[in-house]
């Protein structure tokens, strides 16, 4: 259904590409069957000619959407409950198939070895870009889906919420994210954005018996709708200024025309940035993030934090770099300010949080700042191999595993009712569950950017990209990013301290601030606070289901292995180039 709508829309939109061709001038063979030759501004479109659809390029999207709908259909036809783990298994297998196919496409488009390949192509009348970047994003979002499905497998029965809907929504959302990653047309970006977001709104509010969950869903929905409207208005303005919604066509138009007044274009660009900035939770469009992250069911938070951010950034990167490279001197200052604000605000506000989910939410805000750093440097023209796009792509992949692993632990510690998220709940975790505490420590250290973890390599990658970029403002941004990393280390340490505290009044003296911060009341001081804190934490037993163990294991192994030997991943990210 969706695909049909999509192709229709594209068919209507593509021919209007400024009188020029709607297909991008990539130099690769573009299918002649697009039928847009005769159309111009005359308004007479003639008989509607459907474009040639390269289904094999669309398969990742189709498999996911199809599998989701099939699960929904089958589960509504079959009575009774499904065997435990079947929903999750279905989802994981779907995601693995998609990844396998994506890997196959990677081999076709980018090449696994050094052999020359046809290179990236535009498909479906130029609406879809099949290039290294979109395939990389697909792989990343599918990884997030797998991890989130593993979390949901034990979370949903624990919360008495089991059913296919959660997985269906996640798969649809993933499909939307993938579409955003490969969209080569603003309309397609919008389609992807909506498919991603609508599923996410429901996922956020999925925990029916938890008031916070509904509240978060409502908040996310209202703000998300606003941001979509912003985005759409941005699309309209850009279309008005350039006469096309196709990214290559916009770029072509802007490089071949001098706009006498570019107010409309700039306003459109700004609105696009606002819309996507909301999706990636960049300051000042981040205010929904903490509440929504806190309120969502933890597996949904893991998915949202990883997939929505990756998809949002994929679209943002592609729009700014593919369609608006000529406006770089206009959007780069905006991105600079966004990045600086995101880094500083994200990490500083996290310091005073007392809820681990909120801390991680703000930390995920500050992570967005680092990805923006890569975007800031992504137009770098120099002999240096390190480039911002690859840095951002690598960061998103590394971040996906770090954040999914972290929220996996939050899922476990949160316990029945998804309610134990204060620092207090983590006190003494190292005594009760040493391996869990160690895993969380590694993931947090990775988020902080301590060496021998992917988090460090990722930060290193984007900062080296921004420093390569050269100007004094870029250096300032690099230093700012590192200092933000130091600040953020403080709150990661706060969690680690809580886990490794012996449950005595250790924080009474100099750690008074820490103890007070950890106290639920927030105002109690010193020894009194710690005494209150230690009591309930020790009694609760923490069960770690097998699937979550696997998820955490994957995340930790990934974080450490590619932290120590990052060369293959870096190589992969470096070849994840844009079509145009």
């Amino acid at each position, binding site marked *: 259904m969706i695909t049909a709508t999509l192709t229709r829309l594209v068919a209507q939109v593509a021919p209007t590409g400024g009188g020029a061709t709607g297909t991008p001038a990539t130099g690769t063979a573009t299918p002649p069957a697009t039928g847009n030759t005769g159309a111009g501004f005359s308004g007479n479109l003639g008989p509607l000619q459907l474009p040639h659809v390269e289904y094999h390029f669309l398969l990742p999207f189709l498999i996911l959407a199809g599998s989701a709908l099939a699960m929904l259909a089958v589960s509504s036809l079959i009575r009774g409950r499904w065997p435990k783990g079947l929903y999750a298994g279905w989802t994981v297998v779907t995601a693995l198939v998609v990844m396998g196919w994506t890997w196959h496409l990677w081999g076709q488009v980018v090449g696994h070895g050094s052999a020359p390949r046809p290179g990236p192509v535009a498909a479906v009348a130029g609406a879809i870009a099949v290039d290294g970047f979109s395939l990389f994003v697909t792989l990343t979002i599918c990884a997030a889906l797998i991890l989130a499905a593993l979390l949901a497998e034990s979370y949903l029965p624990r919360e008495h919420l089991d059913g296919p809907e959660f997985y269906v929504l996640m798969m649809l959302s993933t499909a939307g994210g993938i579409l955003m990653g490969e969209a080569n047309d603003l309309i397609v970006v919008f389609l992807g954005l909506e498919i991603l977001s609508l599923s996410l709104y429901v996922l956020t509010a999925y925990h029916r018996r938890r008031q916070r969950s509904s509240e978060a869903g409502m908040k996310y929905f209202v703000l998300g709708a606003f941001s979509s409207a912003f985005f759409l208005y941005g699309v309209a303005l850009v279309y008005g200024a350039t006469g096309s919604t196709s990214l290559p066509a916009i770029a072509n138009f802007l490089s071949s025309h001098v706009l006498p007044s570019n107010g409309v274009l700039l306003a459109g660009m700004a609105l696009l940035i606002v819309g996507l900035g909301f999706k990636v939770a960049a300051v000042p469009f981040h205010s929904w993030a903490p509440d929504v992250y806190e309120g969502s069911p933890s597996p949904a938070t893991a998915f949202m934090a990883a997939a929505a951010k990756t998809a949002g950034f994929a679209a943002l990167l592609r729009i700014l770099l593919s369609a608006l490279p000529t406006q770089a001197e206009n959007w780069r200052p905006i991105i600079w300010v966004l990045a600086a604000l995101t880094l500083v605000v994200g990490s500083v506000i996290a310091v005073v949080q007392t809820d681990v989910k909120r801390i991680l939410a703000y930390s995920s805000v500050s992570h967005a700042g680092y990805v923006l750093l890569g975007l800031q440097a992504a137009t770098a023209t120099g002999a*240096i191999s*390190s480039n911002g796009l690859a840095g951002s792509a690598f960061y998103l992949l590394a971040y996906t595993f770090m954040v999914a692993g972290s929220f996996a632990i939050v899922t476990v510690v949160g316990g029945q009712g998804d309610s134990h998220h204060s620092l207090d709940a983590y006190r003494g975790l190292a005594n009760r569950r040493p391996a869990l505490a160690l895993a969380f420590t590694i993931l947090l250290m990775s988020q902080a950017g301590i*060496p021998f973890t992917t988090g460090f390599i990722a930060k290193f990658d984007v900062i080296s990209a921004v*420093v390569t970029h050269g100007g004094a403002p870029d250096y300032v941004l690099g230093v700012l990013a*590192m200092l933000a990393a130091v600040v953020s280390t*403080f709150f990661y*340490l706060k969690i680690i301290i809580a886990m490794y505290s012996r449950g005595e009044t250790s924080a009474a003296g*100099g*750690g008074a601030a820490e103890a007070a911060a950890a106290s639920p009341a927030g105002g109690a001081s010193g020894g009194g606070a710690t005494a209150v804190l230690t009591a309930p934490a020790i009694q609760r037993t923490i069960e770690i289901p097998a699937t979550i163990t696997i998820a955490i294991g994957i995340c930790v192994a990934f974080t450490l292995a590619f932290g120590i030997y990052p060369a293959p991943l870096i190589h992969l990210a470096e070849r994840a180039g844009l079509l145009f």
Partner: protein
Amino acid sequence: MLPAVVSVGTNGARIPGVGFPLLTVITLLPLITAVIVALIPRSRVELIKLVGVGGATATAALTAYLTYKFATGTAAFQFQSHHMWIESFGISWHLGVDGISLFLVLLCGLLFPLAMVGPTIHGNEKSYLAWLLVLETGCLGSFLSLDLFLFFLFFELTLVPMYFIISGWGYDNRVYASTKFFLYTLAGSAVMLVGMLALVLLHANANGGLITFDLVQLTSGNPIGNTAATLIFLSFAVAFGIKVPLVPIHTWLPDAHTEAPTGGSVILAGVLLKLGTYGLLRFGIFLFPRQALHLAPWLLVLAVIGIIYGAIVATVQKDLKRLVAYSSVAHLGFIVLGLFALTTEGLSGGVLQMVNHGLSTGALFLLVGMIYERRHTRQISELHGLQKSAPWLAAIFTVVMLSSIGVPGLNGFVGEFLILIGTFVTHRWYAVVGATGVILAALYLLWAYQRVFHGEPTGDNATMPDMSWKERWVMLPLLVAIVFLGVYPKPLLTRIEPSVNAVLARVHDVTGYTQPAVAVSTSVVAAAPGAGAVGSGSP
């Protein structure tokens, strides 16, 4: 492209141990041991100790072997091990040792087993030993890395285990102290990382796009612009200055040292602080000779302030451990003074004093730890007349204290004397002011000794047990080293001097600066004050 393993010096001199990656083994052995320790069940304490201490001792033996095999009379990096690691960033696993790092590696090898065996571990032995072993890898790796990125990795790696050691096994205020330590150092290295990247990229721009983090390659080729280099040097100086620590940014040190468990303090003072001074020399002076020369007066001022300030603050401390901590500030000030004097004597003295300070302050922390174990207090006012009840402790404390003061015949004297000579030649008044630090050191240490050990013991002080045989055996290697270096420092100096001269030769090549022609040999006699006319002649 370099072959996979390079085992000859850069000058082509044949170095023993061809083919065997000795430095890689030295660096990774503690880490491997740590993993093994982590896999042993927690209940098997004896086995854990055996494996942990065994691993550290084996590392110590290897460092001793390295010292034995080290070829004298050459400034080249020896025992190099070179593999590409992250090709696209120009990052390689490049280890090598020269006269500057050799004895710091040996010091690491010596101090870690002692820090494991000496103090009693309260709490979980397994994690404690594992963290210490990880820390040892971090320290050794930092000293041996010839690749900036690799150095940074190891430099940062030292933070994590130290943080856990302080926050897990420390005293009352440990959470505050460990967090402060972590954040201070991390802030410094954050700035350094940006500086490092800028250096590499600017170097690449100046040299046809060759991206490399390799120290040797970075020092060759076209230099980068002066303004950029100054800023990068400053970013390095801030990072290392925090680690040293230089005075305005030293405040993490007293807390961290005081709250750390004894073993942690020993390593912190003995080894970790040296990362700062080593970094200033290797990645400051050697990498940025011109900037180091220009900014030397500023660093010398900070060093002298550190000497005087550290000494004065140490004098008024009520806590014995805090007193030793502040004495570190003063002693490290001496080392920085020697390094930025930019003379053969100053640099040699600085490197030697790094080792000396590791020995004597490490020993002092061990002894203070022993007192605390017995009396459960570090307050000087509560300790009294320990000489009567614990004569062995008092005797050994005396020797170590005298070494720390810098009494002739013990190691501290040689280092401080060389530093003062070296500084006097180029920066006379800094040396004069710095020299008062020696007197102040005598003041605070002797005064503390007098209050703690002299007089008639009362109460718990009277019944305090003396050192056990184990503790005496732990102190023995340190005492031997203290006396040996005091009497016969030549074996060290002959190995340090070529490397130090290579640094000065680089300073000369880049800036045309020549050190004053006084006391070219390290012979102590040659230090007639009048001969020190600044800038006269060439060596």
